[in-house]
Each structure stands twice: as C-alpha cells, then as structure tokens.
C-alpha cells in the first residue's frame, strides 16, 4: 500500500505544475513524508520490538479504549438515528392525541380508528395516511402455526396497505401495492419466512394465526402469504415480523372506521405533502377534533373538554416521546449519556496511558534525534517522523480494537438489551467519527514527543549533556494523576451502585416471592376467564402445588391499567380518583402472603365479594383521602365496569415493581375480564415432579398452546435490570480502567528504573539501603495517587448522590465506601511501584555501573 501511494505521489510530481505552487509544495511535502515514513517505519517497528512489553501495554490500553468507544458510538448512533432511514422522514409523522375530560388529562400515543379515513378523504395536505393496529388481546404473543411449526409471535400488526408508501419497508417478494388489499393476507419478514417455510418459496402459502380482537373469543384463521419484506432494522420504533391486512380486522370489527369512542391503541401515521407545515395540518384537523369531541360526549354521557391531535415527527419518537401506549419503551437519553461518559473515561485512561508511555519511551530516542539533525533533518522532518510513528501505533491499536469489537459488542448487547450489529460501522457518520478519533489519538499521542524531542539541540544530546530525565515531566505527572482520579471515581461509582442494589434488594417487599411458578395465559384467554376456578383446582391437584391464584398481573411486570373511582353509588367522572388496578381472585392475598392492616381479605365465605368488595393498599387509601380504618366500609363506583362496591380491607403496602419507588396506590378487585396470569406455589422439594404434572394439566386445558412458564424470582429480578446493567457496565469499565492505569504505571516505572539504573547503583555504592531506594522511587507516585483521591472523591460523591436521587429508598454513601475505593486503587498503584522498586533496589550496583 505504501508503495502504491508513493507511486501516486510520484505521478503528482511529474504532472503539470500549474496547480498552484502551494498545492504543489503540499504534494511534495506529502511525497517526501511518504519516503521518510518508509525509513521511519523501520525504526518504529524495531524500537517497538526493543520495548515489547511497553508497546503491548500501550496498544492494549488504547485498543480497549477504542473498542469501548466504538461500541458506544454504534450504540449512540443507533439510538440517535432511529427512523431516519425512511426517505422523506421529515414529512412523516405519527398522530398523537390528548383527551381532557372529568377523569383527567389523558395523552396517548394512539388515536381513534376513523381518523385515518377522515384524513385520507378530506385533507388534501396529507400525501398518505395509514394505521398500524396491534392485535389487541394477545398483542405480545400471537400464536402462529404452520404444519409442525408453532410459535408465539410478538411483532404482529394489522396494517393499512398505504403504510408501504409512508415507511421504508422494502419488498423482497410480492408487490407492495397489492399485498394487503384482501382480507386474510399477510406480509412477513425474511427471517419469519425462514422460520416457517425453511427455504420453500413462501408466496401463496398459508399460516394459521390465532387472533383475539374484541370478538369475544379467539379466532383461528388461515392467512395467505402475499409478500416478504426485509427485516425491520434495530433502529426503528415500529418493528414488525407479520403485517396482516386491515381488511381482515375490518371483518371482525365493522365499526373500525366509524367508532370514535373506542380506545384500543391504533397508531396513525401520516406523510404530508411537500412544503406543508405540520402546524398548518394540525390546524386543519381542529374542526374534526371538535366534531369527535361532541360525538364522544354524546356517547359517553359525560363532558369531554378537549381533544387535541398533534404531529410527532417520526425520527423524534424514540427519544422524544414517552406517552402511554408507546409501541416500544422509549430510549433513555440518560443511558446514552452514561454510556458515552463511561466510554469517554476509558478512552481517556487508555489515551493518557498511550501519551504517557510514548513520552517516556521517546526519551530513548534523543540520541537518534541528535544524529538525524546532524544528517540534515530539520525540526519539521522530525515532528513529522514522530507524528507518523504515533499514527502507525494508533493504527495497530485500531486493528486490535476491531478484533475486540465483536466480543465486546455481544457483551454489550446482552448487557444493555440492544441488538446492535457491525452494519452501522459502514455509516459515513460512524466512519467519520472513527477517523476523527484516529487522528485525534494519533496526533495527541505523538505531539508531545514530536515537539519536545525535535527541539533538542543535537550538540548537547550527542555530547550526553542532556540526561533525558525521566524523573517525571510535569505533563506526565498530570496524566498519571488524571488516570488514577478517573479510576478512583469509577470504583466509587461501581461500589455505590452495587451497594444500593444490595440495599433495595434486601428490603422487605411486602409480599412473598419464593417458590412461585408463573403461567401466563397467552392464548385462549376467554376460556380461561370463564373457567378459571375449575382450571385452578385442576392445577391444585398436581403434586407439590400448595396454592394457586389468578390475577391481571404479577410482581415484576409494569402495568398501567387503572380504575377511575367515584365515591358513592353513581358514577360521574367529576371528582374521580385514579388507582392502579390488579384484578385477582379470592386466593391472591394469602398466596402472595400480603399482610392486612385493616379489615379482611377477600373471602368465599362472605358470599358475594365478587360483586361487592374492593380492597385497597395503604397508599391507595391515602390516595382516596382516607386512613385505613376510615376507608373500611366506604363505597366506590369504578368507571371501568360501573359497579359500586365497598372497601372491606386495607393491605399493607407491597412493592410489585421493586423498591425503586414508593408503593403505588392500588386497588384489588375480583373482576374476570382482565385475568391473564396464574401463580402456583411450589413445594421446593418436589419441583421437577410438580412441573411435569403442571405441564400435563396445561395440555389438558390448553391443547396446542406451547407450555411456557417462569419462576417469579427470575422474572422479578428484571425490575432492577437497568440498574444492574449499569452496575455491570460500571464494573467492566472500572475494571478495565484500573487494569490499564495499573499496567501503564507499571510500564512507566519499569522504564524509569532502567533509565535510573546508574543513579541507583551510585546511591547503593554510597550506602543507601534497599528501603531507602524503594522510598526514593515511590515517594512521587504516592503523592500523585493521594492527589488523585482528593480530586476524585468529591466528584464521585456528587455523581452518586445525583444518581441516588432516583430512588425512594437509598443508601447514604459514607466514608467507608470512599475510603475503600481509594485504598483499593492506592494498593494497586503501590503494587505497581513497589514491585519495581524492590527489584531494582535489590540489583547488584556493580552490574549497573559497569554497563555504562
């Protein structure tokens, strides 16, 4: 490659000279630099070989930093480029709506079904409009069967055919215009096609899909595959594996295009014509929103004050929108910052290591500098030489980083729950960032040696007048200080995160989560809800099952359903209070071991709890404005089912979502319509026997539905997943950071010792003890690490305090944490220093002196 470049430049030189003298001289410069590089590359490699250890430390540290940065660049680019790959994405919007009525203010990511039709027919400013509607009841697990293959699919949508004119969903087979025109047609992604058809041509084949959309019972129908599209990339909020034709849904729900009052999520996407301002379009929607408002008011029999539609730019959805019913949990810019910051810190440690060791090593080159100057090398020549060398080494580090990358990326994806791949590396933005990083690192590492060494006077170097003293240049001391400050900072943060996690995990949750088997009813929910008592008692017959209960949710699941409650026996949405709802059966409270503060739990013996009893938790009673005792006996009517029931009991607070937040105000109600999970209490001694029996019972009640179960412990563990991810990430980063800093210090000291061998020899001859010499050599570094501690501890204190604010229950990171982090880092640094100091103190001084 070098030769080819040289040749190119040679051609430049023989080319016309009319390009302007400046350009020509630049070209010449580059040409000579190339020739020089050939000469200096040899030097670079050979002098590296002379100091292999330090070279490896340098490259390893930098490569680790670069690899971390690459992963984070990929992550950040992925997060920040969500949905920007759609052509004309600036003109594409999702319509969000906001309803204000007596019950409160309800923004939502979705809209009503008829809106798309209105826009299509009446608003010319829209070029295209289309809806994406999840199959409601079993949105997250649609059973799909093809011959022997049966899977639950998660990313299934009903789609208007126009969606292909709005979003970029490239067809591999089939025709975008016709694919979703008829009922019972489906377009599938490439990987889905492989999954079900394993290489057979999918077009025209059939998939059996179970759907459950407000039709009372599940419908199982055959769909014809009419198209295959590319898989959805990682950076879209709207990921899909199967797109079902809207015409299918219309057959089930004939009022889909007329009913404004129905709120199952329906996402509406619109592409505006060129040069139409979003605000102008929203303005045009206003009369319609008024019409809908009135229609709703008539239907619901209550006042709706306001209905607003707003346009959300497609590319802003991932980071910018956090409404109820978002399709994907929104991106968290906090994590973008935290990860970027962590990568930056590692990069800083790696780079300062690199600069530091380069500077240290370069002192051996002073003689070479002197010779080169006597041979006619100018200062400029030498500056270029050292910069070139440093770029070459940086290049090595980049190559090593690429080798690391796949490993690290897999680790990161598992840790951060992302699905980032190498593809993003090819993006011009990423390439530009990597190139910038390369130049920045290469130049900054080469700059110090380049500038300092090239300034040496050859005379003094050659006469050995200069002792290129490695007693620590101020800049180098600063770099070491910085490295250790960062390392201590990271260790403190890691410790605090882990201690906080241990703390909240150890706090009493208010319910019992041991030995619980969770069965989620994903298919055939209607059957389950009608017959849950019988199904439950069947499961209770299995050996090793001591208790069973059914509910709408189990610990560890986020859920947003709530009841708007009105005191008394009539419902007006005015003055209603909102509590989150868990629908349960009679056995829920005893099975989960939830304690009662006042009143009683649900009882079969009391006859009619299903129709007449509510239970709230203490937070719920507070939300209703009552103490637990006074809440007992009060009557409330829920908007959801318009039933009036009496509060018969108040439970102690329990934390289904962990101890990050205070307990939420909750109401428990025996209400069939939302039941979807069964909890079985297991006897720990008979787990496998119990599992086999449970599976058998499952088969009997849900034939053809895959048997999937989870243990509550594991599922619940996920409530702290963000914190645990961050903890693990910090652990990794601080481990890497300390490793690099340690190796850097070790390398630098090893080298210093070698340079000072003669001095140490003389001191020994003059009678210095080993201890005295060890002290002499370590004193400086001890001071540096102490200083680093003083710098890092306050910063770590601030950062962790800020992070802890996010927890309702938190530790007070005190002196022990900081002291421990500091001492641990200090011990590691001292190990690096002392190992070397003792070795060199033990050397025979005569050898040292003779070697000169």
């Amino acid at each position, binding site marked *: 490659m070098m030769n080819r470049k*040289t040749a190119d430049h*040679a051609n430049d030189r023989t080319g016309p000279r009319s390009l302007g003298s400046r350009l020509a001289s630049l070209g010449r410069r580059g040409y*000579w630099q190339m*020739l*020089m590089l050939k*000469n200096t590359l*040899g*030097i670079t490699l*050979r*002098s590296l070989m*002379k100091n292999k250890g330090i070279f490896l430390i340098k490259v390893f540290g930098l490569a680790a930093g670069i690899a971390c940065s690459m992963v984070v660049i990929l992550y950040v680019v992925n997060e920040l480029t969500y949905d920007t790959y759609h052509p004309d994405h600036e003109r594409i919007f999702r319509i969000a709506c906001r309803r204000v009525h007596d019950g409160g203010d309800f923004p939502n990511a979705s809209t009503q079904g008829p809106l798309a039709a209105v826009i299509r027919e009446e608003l010319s400013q829209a070029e295209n409009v289309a809806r994406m509607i999840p199959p409601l009841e079993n949105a997250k697990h649609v059973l799909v069967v093809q011959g022997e293959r049966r899977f639950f699919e998660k990313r299934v949508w009903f789609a208007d055919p126009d969606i292909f004119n709005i979003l970029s969903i490239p067809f591999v087979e089939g025709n975008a215009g016709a694919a979703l025109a008829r009922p019972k047609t489906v377009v599938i992604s490439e990987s889905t096609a492989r999954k079900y058809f394993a290489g057979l041509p999918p077009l025209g084949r059939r998939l059996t899909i179970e759907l459950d959309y407000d039709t009372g019972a599940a419908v199982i129908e055959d769909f014809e595959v009419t198209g295959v599209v590319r898989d959805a990339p990682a950076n879209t909020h709207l990921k899909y594996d199967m797109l079902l034709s809207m015409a299918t849904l219309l057959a089930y729900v004939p009022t889909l295009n007329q009913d404004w009052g129905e709120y199952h999520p329906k996402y509406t996407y619109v592409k505006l014509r060129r040069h139409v301002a979003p605000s102008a379009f929203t303005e045009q929607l206003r009369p319609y929103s008024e019409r809908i408002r009135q229609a709703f008011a008539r239907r619901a029999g209550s006042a709706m004050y306001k209905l607003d539609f707003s346009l959300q730019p497609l590319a802003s959805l991932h980071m910018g929108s956090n409404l109820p019913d978002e399709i994907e949990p929104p991106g968290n810019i906090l994590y973008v910052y935290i990860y970027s910051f962590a990568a930056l810190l590692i990069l800083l440690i790696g780079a300062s290591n690199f600069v530091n060791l380069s500077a240290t090593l370069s002192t051996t080159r002073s*003689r*070479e500098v*002197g*010779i*080169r*100057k*006597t*041979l*006619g*090398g*100018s*200062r*400029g*020549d030498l500056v270029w030489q050292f910069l070139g060398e440093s770029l070459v080494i940086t290049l090595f580090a980049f190559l090593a980083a690429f080798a690391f990358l796949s490993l690290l990326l897999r680790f990161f994806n598992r840790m951060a729950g992302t699905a980032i791949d190498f593809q993003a590396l090819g993006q011009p933005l990423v390439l530009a960032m990597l190139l910038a990083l390369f130049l920045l690192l290469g130049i900054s590492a080469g700059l110090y040696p380049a500038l300092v060494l090239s300034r040496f*006077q*050859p*005379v003094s170097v*050659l*006469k050995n007048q200069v002792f290129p003293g490695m007693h620590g240049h101020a800049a180098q001391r600063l770099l070491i200080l910085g490295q250790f400050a960062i390392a201590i900072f990271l260790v403190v943060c890691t410790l605090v995160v882990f201690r906080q996690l241990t703390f909240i995990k150890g706090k009493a949750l208010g319910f019992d989560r041991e030995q619980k088997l969770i069965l989620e009813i994903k298919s055939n929910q209607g059957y389950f809800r009608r017959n849950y008592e019988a199904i439950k008692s069947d499961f209770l017959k299995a050996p090793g099952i001591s208790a069973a209960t059914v509910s709408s949710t189990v610990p560890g699941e986020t859920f947003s359903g709530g009841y708007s409650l009105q005191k008394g026996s009539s419902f007006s949405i005015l003055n209603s209070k909102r509590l989150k709802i868990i629908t349960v059966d009679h056995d829920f409270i005893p099975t989960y071991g939830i304690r009662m503060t006042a009143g009683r739990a649900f009882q079969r013996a009391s006859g009619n709890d299903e129709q007449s009893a509510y239970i709230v938790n203490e937070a719920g009673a507070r939300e209703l404005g009552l103490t637990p005792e006074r809440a007992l006996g009060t009557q409330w009517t829920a908007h959801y089912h318009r039933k009036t029931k009496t509060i018969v009991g108040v439970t102690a607070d329990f934390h289904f979502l962990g101890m990050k937040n205070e307990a939420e105000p909750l109401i428990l109600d025996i209400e069939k319509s939302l039941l979807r999970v069964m909890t079985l209490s297991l006897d720990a001694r008979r787990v496998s026997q119990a599992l086999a029996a449970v599976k058998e019972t499952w088969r009997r009640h849900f034939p053809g539905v895959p048997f999937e179960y989870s243990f509550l412990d594991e599922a619940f563990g996920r409530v702290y997943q963000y914190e645990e991810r961050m903890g693990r990430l910090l652990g990794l980063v601080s481990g890497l950071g300390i490793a690099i800093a340690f190796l850097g210090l070790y390398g630098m000291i090893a080298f210093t010792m070698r340079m000072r061998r003669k001095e140490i020899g003389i001191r020994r001859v003059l009678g210095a003890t080993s201890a005295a010499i060890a002290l002499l050599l370590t004193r400086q570094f001890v001071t540096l690490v102490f200083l680093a501690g003083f710098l890092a501890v306050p910063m770590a204190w601030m950062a962790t305090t800020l992070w802890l604010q996010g927890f309702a229950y938190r530790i007070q990171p005190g002196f022990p944490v900081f002291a421990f982090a500091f001492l641990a880092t200090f011990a590691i640094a001292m190990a690096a220093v002392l190992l070397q100091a003792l070795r060199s103190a033990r050397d025979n001084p005569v050898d040292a002196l003779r070697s000169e």
Partner: protein
Amino acid sequence: MIRLMGITKYYANAFIKTFVLRNIDLSVKEGEFLTIMGPSGAGKSTLLYILGMLDEASEGEYFFCGQAVHGLSEKKRTQLHQQNIGFVFQSYHLIDELTVCENLETPLLYKKVKPDERKSLVADALDRFRIVAKKDLFPSQLSGGQQQLVAVARALIIQPKLILADEPTGNLNSQQGEEIMELFRKLNAEGTTIIQVTHSEKNAAYSDRVIHLLDGWMNNKEEAAIPVKNPEAGKRKKNHSEGT
C-alpha cells in the same frame, strides 16, 4: 570558504557566564585539511559544532561560502547544512535501529533526493567503501572500525563540500584508525575540505594546518612548529593567516 570573525560562545546562568570560546577568528579555504587540537574542555568540539551549524555562537560572525550563517533562519541553516556538510563522530552515531543501507539513505531523504538517484548513490557508497556485504546488517553487528567506515560513508554520501570529524579514530584501534585517516587523506586530495578535532599528533600530521585551542582561546603561534605536508598548502595557509 569559511570565515569566522570574533566568534564567542558562553553559557550564562543568573550569576556567571562560562566562556567556551573567546573571540575566535578563523578562515578555511576550500580543499584545506585543518586540525583543531587542544586539551579536554578547550572548546574544540563546540567550535566544530558551530562550524557545522549545529550550534550557534553567542557573538561574532560566521560566513560559509560567502553566506552569513549567523543571520540565517533555522530552516535556511538546516538547508545549507544538509547540502554541504558531513559529520563523523568519535562514537560513530549510527542509528541503531536502521540497517547499514538505511543509515546511508537517511541524509539523502532529508536532502530530498529522488528514489532512483538515491538508490544509485547508496549502491555507489556501499561499493566504494566495500561494505556491500554488510548492507543489511545493523550497527551492533559491526566492529567499531566497520561502524566508523559506515559513518564516513554516510557523511560522504551527500557529496559534501566540508567534512567535520570529531575525534574520528578515538574509539578505534590503531590499524583501523590509520585506515580512516588514509581515507580522509584521499578525500582531501579529491577536493573535499576537512576539519578534524583530535588529541592525536599522528592524526594531526595528516592535515595541512593545525590550530590550538586552550580555554576557549585560539593560539596560532605553534602553527609553524607543525610539520607541513606540502609546501603548497603551507603557502596557502600563510596567505590565509595574513588575510586574517
């Protein structure tokens, strides 16, 4: 070719000036072979480095081929130096990490000689000094004499007008030293100007003229006592000293 007028070099710190050279006047004609002698610390090497443009005088004027060196920018000075001057040192000062061939090549790179021309110059030098077989060896693989031979070859490869040698035989045994000095004599006969610093009377005998330095002062009185190689050179030198 060279004219020094009132060259003084001192190192100053807050309290005292340490003089290395005091008021040196010296002219060297093209084709001359000059020896600078004197005890250690007399300022010989410093004078040599000033002549070689690696060091600057504190005071005084230095003309090289009519150009006022003391007035030149660092860049111009480097240019002048890389075109005209070759150095030979007592401790050879080859670059350890480069092969013989690459060491020879280095000054040509700085002088920006074209690749093909460079190759032929290196080949010539290897040939001329009979070190072709050693071209891929590193300095540490050579004996002292061979290293000095490479160093001389490297100094000559840019075809300098002036060679500056600082105790060139100091680290060599007598036979190797003689070979190097013979080489200098031959080069001088071919027209290269040579200035050497040495302690050795034997080496000084190879030169046309000797100047003595003591504590930074130049003392020309002993000049007459030095055996002169040929009358021509002696006359030239006399004229020359009259000129100063």
